[in-house]
């Protein structure tokens, strides 16, 4: 072998080796971004951290996406002011179902027209800054190890991954595909985490008042929440009812919209959830479905919160309500209508009845036990003195 051909061979070998070793970070961004302290604090006191943990990233949903495919405006160094990532951008991945370049654009398009979206471009909603963006709900999810998935879902196991590897010899590709597929068979978040996510906005009274929406604080008073709280895997979270089978979480509509899962005519189907992972209330009737899952804005009783106060203030200003109409829960009567007002009174009475009953019963039992203890002692003393 001549020196020239040997050199060419070595160069080729080096090229092959390097392309394999830096499969993900071909742009060598990790030269700097692998250091955990790479970051700064801006003038508003917010931290900007530019660190990327390579091993975590390689285990994440976007492991196959190169940095430059999302951070499209970074063309040089120093990076200068960098634009926010546009999740609707087209990346190098190929959608195997259509054999076209992959993008989240369609998902975003639908989302923007949903109740959570900013609305049509020519007619954006007010207070758009309150509305969730992609990264409010999603981070670059790290795939859990197979052992964890195997505990959650039957049929997911290391042996199956090994079965895939029989044909698909590139482990990195097979792992990502397997993780993606098996993980999507499961609910992405725990029900508890899902409720936390939704209520992070929907319990914010000021934010909800800006959009004329009532808070959902009372969800945590319900049986559904108690079941979630104590780890019942079948307990329904927000998505279970607001995007049941046949609906999509990125296309949630207002309840007045015919396309909404909680539109009055769709409620029976939503409660029964026939055809879903589980049929929750298969025998649900229209009157069953009418029940208030999380009565808007007020808890059981004459509960008032800041959002109530703001709405009331506006109604007083508009002349729809008199200033002293708020006494004895009249505000609620006006705001919620007679039927719900009286339902609420009944619920309130039941609640107080049980509070008094339980407290009184246990209290009397304690008093009884204490008196019994002293009586027994006195009796014992009397018997002993008689015997002696």
């Amino acid at each position, binding site marked *: 072998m001549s020196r020239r051909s040997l050199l060419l061979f070595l160069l080729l070998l080096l090229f092959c080796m390097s392309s394999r070793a830096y499969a993900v970070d*071909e*742009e060598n961004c990790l*030269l*700097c971004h*692998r*250091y*955990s*302290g*790479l*970051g*700064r*604090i801006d003038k508003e*006191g*917010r*931290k900007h*951290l*530019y*660190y*990327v*943990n390579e091993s*975590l*990233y390689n285990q*994440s949903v976007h492991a196959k996406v190169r*940095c*430059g*495919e999302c951070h*499209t405006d*970074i*063309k*040089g*160094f*120093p990076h200068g002011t960098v634009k926010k*990532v546009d999740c609707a951008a087209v990346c*190098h991945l190929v959608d195997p179902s259509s054999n076209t370049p992959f993008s989240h654009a369609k998902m975003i398009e639908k989302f923007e027209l949903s109740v959570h979206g900013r609305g049509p471009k020519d007619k954006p909603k007010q207070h758009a800054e309150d509305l969730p963006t992609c*990264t*409010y*709900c999603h*981070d*670059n*999810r*790290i795939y859990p190890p197979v052992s964890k998935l195997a505990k959650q879902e039957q049929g997911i196991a290391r042996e199956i991954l090994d079965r895939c590897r029989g044909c698909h010899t590139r482990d990195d590709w097979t792992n990502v595909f397997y993780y993606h597929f098996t993980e999507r068979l499961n609910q992405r978040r725990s029900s508890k985490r899902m409720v*936390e*996510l939704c209520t*992070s*906005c929907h*319990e*914010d009274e000021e*934010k909800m008042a800006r959009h004329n929406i009532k808070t959902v*604080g009372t969800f945590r008073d319900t049986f559904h929440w108690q079941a979630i709280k104590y780890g019942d895997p079948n307990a329904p979270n927000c998505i279970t009812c607001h995007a049941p089978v046949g609906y999509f979480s990125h296309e949630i509509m207002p309840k007045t919209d015919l396309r909404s899962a909680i539109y009055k005519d769709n409620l029976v189907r939503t409660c029964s959830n026939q055809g879903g992972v589980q049929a929750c209330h298969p025998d649900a009737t229209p009157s069953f479905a009418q029940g208030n899952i999380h009565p808007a804005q007020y808890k059981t009783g004459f509960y008032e919160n800041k959002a109530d106060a703001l709405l009331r203030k506006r109604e007083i200003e508009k002349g729809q309500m008199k200033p002293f109409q708020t006494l004895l829960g009249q505000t609620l009567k006006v705001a919620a209508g007679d039927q719900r007002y009286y339902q609420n009174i009944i619920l309130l009475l039941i609640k107080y009845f049980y*509070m008094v009953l*339980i*407290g009184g019963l*246990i*209290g009397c039992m*304690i008093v009884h036990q*204490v008196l019994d*203890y002293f009586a027994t*002692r006195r009796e*014992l003393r009397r018997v002993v003195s008689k015997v*002696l």
Partner: protein
Amino acid sequence: MTNPLLKLICNLLGFLALLAIIFCLYSLARFLYFQQPHRQTVSREQAVPEKYSKKLRREIGTGHFHVSDEPVTTDIESAPMCLRCHGNFCHNKSEEFRSYYNMHTFFLACETCHIRKEQNSAIRFTWFDDKTGTELKQVKGQNENYGAKIVPVKPDGHGFERLDVLPEIKLAFDFLKNKDSYAPEQKEKIKQQLMKHISREPVTCEECHCKQGYLNYSELGYDALRAADLSRIEIVKMIKEYKDFKFPVIFGSDKK
């Protein structure tokens, strides 16, 4: 019941039962009548500003997209005095270099750069464990994330003196506690007093990242390859010698 010991035991058991009942009653009353309100969630606008003293908790909507926050927190209890005032991400003046400077605070004591070693000085540099404060001959970890920092030390009789300790530590604590009550002039005076051991000109990037540099990487335990790597200075050169360094377009990342 004539046995006094038995009587005593019975009485004790009786009182214990009473206490248990009272505790149960108290718990029940708390559960029924004094339930804690639900946790108020943090709005997006209130995103946690970085404070060294607070361990970051991932709040919904405020987390790092690349989920990289976790290893970047340090416990205030073991933090050097400088960082308790200035925070982990303390460099802010130079827009181009601030992130790079901040990166170094995770593995260099501030004094490594901010107390300049005179020529022929006996000062040497060595690793110290962040938590235990013991000197380390070897560090474990990667990407300079070792839970240890390079600290300047000065031989002192039989041992050495660490130079990353503020000479007037008592004054520093006092200042931290009462800084809001001081007048601006008084504040400035105390700051100057606290910083009097700090060199006016810190050690520059080029001084360390060059052959025969300020730090001896081999002595610090770096292998020959890494030491050679650290003795180069491509990034600094890229910033200083090119106004705008364009990435070569060979990976197709700019396709439309």
